[in-house]
């Protein structure tokens, strides 16, 4: 069984390698203009060059920082606000509808407002990323708190637990699957918004780098940047799902 799985995996890698070879072939035959389609060899060389002289590493760290700080602020504020709103019935009926109304708003539309408020600065990027990334976590926390098994609340009442104890001992653990899936969604959102903010405000990061490369028609550098952005998306999603498995192990390990 394990053998066949490995074989399929190998075959799948072979298909991906074949497609890269096809890309190389198209680039070599100049079926698409080399101005915007460099071969994988040139993109790879640009990637290696960028890492050996340190520029790409610096840009990657810049993007990761923007993304991570915004996401962190959004996580803390989102879960705290969500817990506040979700743990009280009154707050839920007064505030939750307004949140539901705001949810379908394309968050990038807040960027001009943020630029007007903060200028083209790091603070603007932090605000935009945090604002965009907060929604999935906020709504997931409110929803998760609302969906707690009512009997657990009854138990808490008969034990005379304080509201804080109820939140930390009952509501948060039982809402954690919702919250973590919200956090994962937010990670994707914050990567996209980090790139957009870098493009708009010229902040140091991969978004700015790919735009500059495009303007100078340095397509290998451009592709190297896009590959790195894909890698960031992949690695952060992977890390999040590992954290999820670890944190939620108690749910599957039969209690």
């Amino acid at each position, binding site marked *: 069984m394990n053998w066949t799985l490995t074989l*399929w*995996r190998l*075959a*799948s*890698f072979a*298909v*991906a390698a074949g*497609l890269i070879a096809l890309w190389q072939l198209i680039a070599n035959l100049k079926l698409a203009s080399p*101005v*915007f*389609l460099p071969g994988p060899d040139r993109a790879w060389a640009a990637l290696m060059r960028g890492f050996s002289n340190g520029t790409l590493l610096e840009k990657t760290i810049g993007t990761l920082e923007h993304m991570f700080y915004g996401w962190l602020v959004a996580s803390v504020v989102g879960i705290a606000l969500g817990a506040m709103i979700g743990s009280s019935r009154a707050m839920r*009926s*007064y*505030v*939750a*509808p*307004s949140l539901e*109304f*705001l*949810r*379908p*708003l*394309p*968050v*990038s*539309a*807040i*960027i*001009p*407002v943020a*630029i*007007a*408020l903060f200028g083209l600065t790091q603070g603007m990027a932090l605000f935009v990323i945090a604002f965009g990334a907060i929604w999935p976590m906020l709504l*997931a926390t409110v*929803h998760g708190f609302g969906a707690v098994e009512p009997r657990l609340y009854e138990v808490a009442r008969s034990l005379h637990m304080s509201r804080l104890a109820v939140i930390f001992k009952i509501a948060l653990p039982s809402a954690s699957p919702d919250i973590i899936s919200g956090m994962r969604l937010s990670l*994707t959102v914050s*990567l*996209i918004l980090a*790139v*957009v903010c870098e*493009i*708009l405000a010229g902040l140091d990061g991969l*978004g700015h780098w*790919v*735009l500059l*490369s*495009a303007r100078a*028609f340095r*397509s290998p550098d*451009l*592709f190297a*940047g*896009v590959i790195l*952005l*894909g*890698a*960031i*998306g*992949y690695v952060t*999603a992977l890390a999040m799902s590992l954290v999820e498995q670890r944190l939620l192990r108690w749910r599957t390990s039969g209690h």
Partner: protein
Amino acid sequence: MRSERLKAAILPMSLLIVLEIWARSVDIHSDALAPPSAVVLALFQAFGDGSILAATRDTLASAFAGLAVGGAIGLFLGIALGIFQPLDRLMEVTIESLRPIPSIALLPIALIALGFGYRMEIVIVAFACVWPILILSRAAVRSIEPRLIEVSRALRLSPGDRISKIIIPAALPRIFLAFRLAAGIALIVAVTVEIAINPIGLGAGIMIAQQALRPDLMLAYLLWIGLIGYALNAGLLAAQQHLFGPAALAGEVR
């Protein structure tokens, strides 16, 4: 029910009133804030001269064209991968390495390949829409009741008939759900591309209003974009409920 609605309206209403009174009393000259009444006035003016309508047309046209292209590709691949398991396993590495690329990262590539305008925006929206539809329609095809497939075998349906008469109808509720989610993504990506770089549509309109230091017009655009997002979501939700009944919403992942 009515009191619930009333409670829901209290917070935004009181916020608006406070903002209005505050803005009027200190006579603000801000680049970012404007009294709500001025925002509504600016919205009506933008309707009056037709600028916001043209921008809405551009944004929605690109969003829906991208959704159509990306949706068609995603649906085709999703059904193909759902039916032929070996194909799915072979494509796994390719798909999993393309999927995490943030759609907006393709913007510079699309920019030098296609230039400004509709085409570049449509390509980016299409790329963003392929993945949710591919993943959800693949899952939808796989979760079809196996007996339906057995029936189609017993009836000796041709592969084309099997897909159009059995597989697509059975997977349709979940495919529609995928389209609803992708429509929201399409609007978000279209507006984002316009804000970042493309000089057409609502995103460009709101950027121009900001650069012209017209906070009233900027917030009017923001309000209008929010309303479109809300209406699109609510309309598709209603259509989903109408077409497939409440059962279609029951198993929804939130």
